[in-house]
């Protein structure tokens, strides 16, 4: 699936540009009328820094209200007054700045799941990583859960223009390793040029640039093609002004702009299935500002609520097929905050936290098991405990809304899924099977410098990383020498000097385990040509200055020609004389003949030598060469042309690898 979509994006670039130029309102790449394809969109809003869920969804009654008030003398959301909590049910309230969300809750479009958690790290960076790569406790997974959803979803059409967008300047970790994602900050500036089309040469330049990036398959090459395709597409929308639904105004901040961008892409019908949006600034260790309208937390909640409300309304409508019917918004944060406020009117890193689900097919309400705030009920005596695994909620969205039951691929090692009933949709039997990666392709081991060995391969499917073992000789043990990420396609090793029969073992890994391995041994010796490159250039590879075609001095002879003629590539050659000293071939005129004379090493079995002659530089005829004698390992050769043309007779020596 991933392969076909990627091929589409790369191979059909002209098609893409054509679609873009015609600005089709609906690019139906799935067969028209096809009903099997799932069209639902998941929008993942991430509150970065650790949102204080006990302030967003505070307890408003019972013993826990008492614990809450005791632990938060200054930060508690009050029950009365102009900044009082809004009532959600008998037990929980909503922060007053989130008032725009209250009608959505009351109309059953917003679900709150309390006390959600992951692997329980109080490190921002670990906790975010666990959530976004989808493997709690294992931060080495190098693909994001949404990237794995895209590549495993059985109900997506094979060809989509823009399946996935990560809004902002850098891609979200949940989309790491996705070749289908566009990272997009702003439509109007997402262009290769600044003033429309400033240069006459731009069309040629773009064509050449595309070919540059088509010459390789590294992560950089693939990213370049993706950038070219997406820029070509997005540029065509840059001029148009987006008009949200009547009465909808997005907050004039990055969060609002990014939501507006997602809404615009959904309405353009370019095939969007996944979007990520971030809100920064929730790490409120000091002066959290929960209870007054100028406070930091208050303002963030207001931004969040205004943005979500605008987004929901923009996609809503009276008709039954309003886009919101296929949109699910998940709002999550890496952890909640400590129950007890600190001395600086702030809160420190905690554990369990509410997660919000909003959308046209949500069964609104409050979900999750509330663990309680009594000291005995707290995690580590300090934090709201986590009682619901966040993967349970996301799995329900995957199955009921996105039509993807492949939980084993999206959330490896996760089991025991039961829907909480947050979403409407069809239940599919969860598929926990997961596969180890495929075997990496074209594994090659080559000595590149006197001290280093280059290993190269092509990417394995489903790889989250690669493991390389080394064995110094067949009797020795395999020892792991490198653990690489999923983007790696090469590795330079510096083996011990004494390693007569060096071999390497490569395999890809993911959280299911290691895929089949492949072994390659370093060839016992180099070919004479590789050895020659190594001697003269310090590398055996046919690239860069050591490339066969490269001309290293001003004599015009390529490296390979100099190899064939036994010359030093770094010294300019002069024409040969009468003896056996190597040099440039020479033309000798005699009475009624023209001959080409050259000197070659006697041991170049890997080179073919052939003299040709021509009178018009267009048609060339081979001429046989004969030996004139040998000396010190050198052979002097001569090719004769009888009765040369009176005006011009050309001779050339072709040298080629055998």
């Amino acid at each position, binding site marked *: 699936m991933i392969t076909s979509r990627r091929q589409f994006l790369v191979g059909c670039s002209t098609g893409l540009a054509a679609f873009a130029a015609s600005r089709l309102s609906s690019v139906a790449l799935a067969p028209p009328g096809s009903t099997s394809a799932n069209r639902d969109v998941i929008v993942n809003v991430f509150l970065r820094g650790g949102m204080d869920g006990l302030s967003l969804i505070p307890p408003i009654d019972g013993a826990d209200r008492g614990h809450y008030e005791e632990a938060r003398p200054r930060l508690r959301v009050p029950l009365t007054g102009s900044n009082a909590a809004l009532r959600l049910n008998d037990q929980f309230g909503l922060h007053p700045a989130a008032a725009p969300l209250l009608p959505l809750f009351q109309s059953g479009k917003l679900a709150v799941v309390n006390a959600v958690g992951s692997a329980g790290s109080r490190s921002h960076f670990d906790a975010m990583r666990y959530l976004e790569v989808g493997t709690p406790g294992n931060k080495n997974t190098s693909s994001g859960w949404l990237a794995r959803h895209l590549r495993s979803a059985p109900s997506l059409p094979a060809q989509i223009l823009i399946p996935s967008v990560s809004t902002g300047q*850098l891609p979200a970790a949940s989309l790491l390793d996705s070749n289908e994602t566009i990272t997009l900050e702003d439509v109007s500036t997402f262009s290769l040029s600044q003033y429309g089309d400033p240069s006459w040469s731009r069309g040629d330049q773009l064509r050449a640039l595309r*070919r540059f990036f088509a010459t390789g398959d590294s992560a*950089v090459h693939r*990213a370049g093609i993706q950038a070219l395709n997406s820029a070509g597409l997005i540029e065509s929308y840059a001029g148009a002004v987006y008009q949200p639904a009547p009465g909808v105004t997005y907050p004039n901040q990055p969060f609002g702009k990014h939501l507006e961008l997602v809404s615009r892409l959904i309405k353009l019908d370019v095939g969007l299935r996944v979007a990520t949006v971030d809100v920064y600034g929730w790490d409120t260790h000091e002066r959290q500002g929960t209870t007054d309208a100028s406070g930091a937390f208050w303002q963030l909640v207001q931004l969040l609520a205004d943005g979500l409300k605008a987004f929901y309304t923009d996609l809503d409508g009276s008709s039954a097929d309003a886009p919101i019917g296929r949109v699910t918004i998940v709002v999550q944060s890496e952890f909640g905050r400590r129950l007890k406020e600190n*001395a600086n009117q702030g809160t*420190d890193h905690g554990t369990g936290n509410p997660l919000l689900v909003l959308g046209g097919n949500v069964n609104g309400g409050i979900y999750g098991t509330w663990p309680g705030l009594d000291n005995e009920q707290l995690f580590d005596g300090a934090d709201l405990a986590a009682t619901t695994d966040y993967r349970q909620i996301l799995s329900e969205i995957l199955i009921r809304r996105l039509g993807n039951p492949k939980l084993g691929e999206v959330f490896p090692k996760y089991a025991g899924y039961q829907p909480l009933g947050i979403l409407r949709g069809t239940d599919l039997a969860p598929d926990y099977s997961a596969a180890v990666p495929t075997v990496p392709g074209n594994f090659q081991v080559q000595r590149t*410098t006197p001290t280093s060995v280059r290993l190269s391969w092509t990417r394995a499917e489903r790889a989250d990383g690669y493991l390389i073992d080394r064995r110094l000789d067949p009797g020795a043990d395999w020892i792991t020498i*490198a653990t690489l990420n999923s983007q790696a396609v090469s590795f330079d090793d510096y083996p011990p000097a004494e390693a007569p029969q060096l071999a390497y073992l490569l395999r890809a890994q993911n959280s299911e385990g290691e895929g089949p391995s492949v072994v390659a041994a370093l060839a016992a010796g180099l070919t004479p040509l590789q050895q020659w490159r190594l001697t003269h250039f310090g590398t055996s590879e046919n690239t860069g200055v050591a490339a066969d075609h490269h001309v290293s001095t001003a004599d015009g002879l390529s490296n390979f020609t100099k190899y064939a003629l036994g010359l030093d590539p770094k010294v300019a050659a002069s024409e040969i004389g009468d003896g056996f000293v190597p040099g440039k071939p020479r033309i000798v005129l005699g009475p009624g003949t023209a001959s080409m004379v050259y000197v070659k090493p006697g041991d170049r079995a890997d080179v073919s030598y052939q003299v040709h002659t021509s009178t018009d530089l*267009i048609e060339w005829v081979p001429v046989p060469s004969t030996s004139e004698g040998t000396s010190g390992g050198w052979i002097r050769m001569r090719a004769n042309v009888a009765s040369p043309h009176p005006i011009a007779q050309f001779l050339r020596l072709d040298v080629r690898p055998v």
Partner: protein
Amino acid sequence: MRKPPPHPPPPPNRRKAAKPRPRAGFGPRPGDLEAFNALGTTDDARLEAWVEQQLHPSTIDDSAVEARLVAAGLTTLQKSREQLWQDHHIDAGNDYTVRYQPIYQTQRAAYIRAVYSRRQLTEVLADFWHNHFNIYAPDYWIGPLWVHYDRDVIRPHLLGNFRTMLEAVAKSFPMLHYLDLFVNTVVGPNENFARELFELHTLGAENYLGVREPEDVPQDAQKNPIAYVDSDVYEATRAFTGWTVDFELAAFRYSAPDHDRFRKEVLSHPLKQDQAPLKDGHDVLDLVAHHPGTARHIARKLARRLISDDPPTRVVEEAAQVFLANTTAPDQLLQVTRSILLSPEFRNTWGQKVKRPFEFTAGILRSLGADLSFAFNHEPSDYFVWLAGQCGQPLFQWLTPDGYPDIAEKWLGTNAIVGGWRTVNWLVNLKNWWSGKYILFDPIAAMPAGVRSPIEIVDFWILRLLGRPLPEAARLEAIDFMARGRDPEMKLPGFSDDIVRERVHGLLGLILMAPENLMR
């Protein structure tokens, strides 16, 4: 009569071979290659000479950059910490353009140095350590002092001692404020600083075991715990109580009454009750700065910046050993940096790093030899800095304390790549609207008189801009672009012709957008 064939394929590149060049900089400027080649007779000798030179920046004359900083009008760079506080905090009130002037000027100075300084390694390391001890600069209290943080806290220690640097950072007003250490008291502890001290500044998350009893942490041969747990964070928080700021002087202050005087235990090491003032904190800094986990974390991060995203274990271990063997040496970081730069892994790898936008955008100015003043209200300078920031790395503006990411995946997103290309195209096509003349640089004048055919032009600019050859297939594409159907070996007519000129500018853009220029 046979039809003459189309132009024969161009002959291979005849230009002089490019030598391996040091990558610990922002890319080649015109003349750098020649200067580098003159440093020795073998590649290794040249690299070693270059590294030694760069490790002793005071021996490199950089007066031209000093003149540029002055010419750009960056007056805050000269102000003392006290003066910065007076001018940009006390006198500035809520005028944010004045409050943040030191940030904007430090950004411009960083670009001027990256583009024009001959002390390239210094600039690479300044960028590295700023990100290691990252602070979000546009903050009400921190912005006015940004020149101080850059000049007095980070830069003096780039090649110095890690423990000394750690303390300078911990006692700097910006860090005390950013990570809330200034409000950390015995009655109201705040763990923010202590947590990031372990997780980001020293041992790293790779050595964090979460909620666990300290006695359950495995020990190394010296009976020291190999990792830290949450209780170490809390105990260190207690050790740093009383570390605060003087808002009058914008300086570190120790408040003894706010200090927690009782016994603490950090990394299984007891800190006795009633130690001398500041000693608890200093002891914690000693413990973390000298921990083997810190040595590996710093070595790996530096190697990640200089060599590859997953640096080989050998070079990391070697650098970590150098770090540990020199914990009290005044040039500890010089030695660590040297061990990485002289490793075979550094010498022999290329293309393992994707350039971050700061490197990429500074690099295009360097390779073009473009003369951009970076003065304020100079329209191209203002616009360049804005465009470069759009790529995702506006300097000193990463919000969280982990610094800008240093892995390829984050910088291969379409926004960063398209933004970089946009900056290239804007720069190479930048004309004066009235005269129609290109500004910043003149590629025609830069080409020797013998460089006039498409092949010559392409080969000249590939070497000049990238310092290394392009793959042959890409080179042929570029020749095709330049020749537009003409014989690529024939001299192009009419160099005063705007169409030829525009092609040359387009060619520069093309080469600078190549995959080879996204990597280093």
